[in-house]
């Protein structure tokens, strides 16, 4: 695939934007209906720009041909624009407070030396990843597939830290506050809580490394909460204060944001109001086709590699199936190395186009609990949990 096709293939946005190409680096010039690719962010390589204040940057689809997302290509999403751009580790402390026997502070060094380090791969995915595919368009950031990534997270178990401080009886939730602040002081600060029983599980950690490096500032330096299997809204960035609570945390972010309709389909008719809502938690089973990109041109008889990733909430991926006849028949893709139940599972398939014309390639993942990607899903006001069978169309010439 040549460079032009590469950029042409980014045309998956419903939004028209064209860039004053003379003002952007030559390599970034394109004329398709999509957002500009930016290379202007420190710590980051080519990402799709939605906003710089706060930074909202999406990973282009073609990078999901590999299980591990490099830090430089990892998507960026903040809620409040006053984000940490410098942290002095000499004075930075993690505070543990609230319903604990010994309120305590840790330096990053304390965390690294006092507790057993833990490492695992886990997918970080925004609740609204794929929001752009919902019709009608829900409000929010209109991510395509790239508000997700997979990294090796290294850190300490939250359980160990909380036990060190001593959880008092009657505790039910743990609240996490990061260094990000609202630019307008009356805007509610981004603070979220998790149920205590989830927090005490072995796999909830505070990570100080991402892919064996300190976390980029843009991904939550120096410490990020990792809640594998759960959507990114729970993975608080730049955590600096942890409060154990004996009653539920009440604020805008907990009471109104990141809610799903509380019914079987987690859906409503567009325009209607859900009767009851619940907080979004676990991810669903999903596969994404990274390559070839939509509208790629390939030659009859020339073998192409179809590649992508698949993941779920932690049961693990059993199979990824591909269809070349709009879902009538399915063929198994080859699965890459298993990197743990919360990781992306790489998959690939070699395909030889037989005749000229347009061809739709579909991918469908099935997890170890037997759940598979649906052909369609109901609408929800937040535009959350998009996991419909993925599709790309290629042009065979």
């Amino acid at each position, binding site marked *: 695939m040549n460079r032009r096709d590469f950029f042409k293939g980014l045309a998956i946005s*419903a939004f*028209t*934007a064209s860039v*004053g190409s003379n003002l952007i680096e030559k390599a970034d010039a394109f004329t398709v209906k999509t957002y500009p690719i930016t290379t202007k962010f420190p710590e980051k390589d080519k990402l799709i720009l939605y906003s*710089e*204040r706060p930074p909202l940057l999406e990973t282009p689809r073609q990078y999901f041909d590999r299980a591990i997302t490099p830090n430089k290509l990892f998507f960026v999403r903040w809620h409040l624009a006053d984000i940490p751009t410098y942290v002095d580790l000499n004075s930075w402390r993690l505070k543990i407070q609230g319903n604990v026997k010994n309120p305590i502070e840790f330096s990053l060094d304390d965390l690294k030396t006092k507790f057993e380090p833990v490492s695992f791969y886990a997918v970080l995915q925004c609740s609204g990843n794929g929001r752009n595919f919902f019709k009608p368009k829900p409000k929010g*950031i209109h991510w395509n597939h790239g508000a997700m990534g997979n990294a090796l997270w290294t850190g300490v178990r939250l359980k160990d830290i909380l036990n060190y401080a001593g959880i008092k009886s009657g505790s039910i939730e743990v609240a996490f506050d990061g260094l990000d602040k609202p630019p307008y002081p009356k805007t509610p600060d981004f603070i979220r809580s998790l149920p205590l029983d989830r927090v005490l599980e072995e796999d909830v950690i505070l990570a100080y490394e991402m892919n064996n490096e300190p976390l980029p500032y843009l991904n939550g330096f120096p410490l990020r909460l990792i809640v594998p299997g759960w959507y990114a809204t729970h993975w608080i960035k730049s955590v600096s204060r942890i409060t154990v609570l004996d009653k539920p945390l009440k604020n805008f972010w907990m009471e109104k944001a990141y809610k799903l309709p509380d019914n079987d389909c987690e859906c409503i008719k567009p325009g209607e109001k859900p009767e009851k809502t619940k907080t979004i938690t676990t991810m669903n089973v999903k596969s994404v086709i990274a390559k070839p990109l939509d509208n790629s041109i390939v030659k009859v008889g020339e073998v192409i590699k179809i590649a992508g990733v698949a993941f779920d909430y932690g049961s693990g991926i059993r199979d990824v199936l591909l269809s070349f006849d709009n879902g009538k028949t399915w063929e198994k893709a080859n699965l890459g190395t298993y990197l743990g139940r919360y990781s992306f599972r790489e998959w690939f398939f070699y395909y030889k186009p037989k005749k000229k014309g347009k061809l739709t390639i579909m991918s469908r993942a099935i997890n170890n609990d037997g759940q598979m990607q649906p052909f369609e899903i109901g609408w929800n006001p937040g535009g959350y949990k998009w996991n419909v069978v993925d599709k790309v169309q290629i042009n065979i010439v």
Partner: protein
Amino acid sequence: MKKIIFLLLLGFSTNLFASDSKLNLPIYSYPLKEGKGKQLVETYCQMCHSVGYILNNAGVDKKTWEHIVHHMIHDFKAPIDEKSAKEILDYLVKNYGTKNK
């Protein structure tokens, strides 16, 4: 064809603190479509975030824009008076509504 131009006005970074260790984030300027209410949008809707948020939501219907403006005032405490909010809403619906995807 209607084009929304993403203009990269300032290609340089915000080097406010001139320290090597501080992360320098770029600044972008997103010219909004001309029209009545544009100035109010520029005044009120860039206080807390870039107007990239607005362009990214282009194409939503009137009810959704109403919801968004109300959400900014009610939940995020945007200090916008009723009259200005109405004019902003009209501008958004006209320039970034369902006909302006």
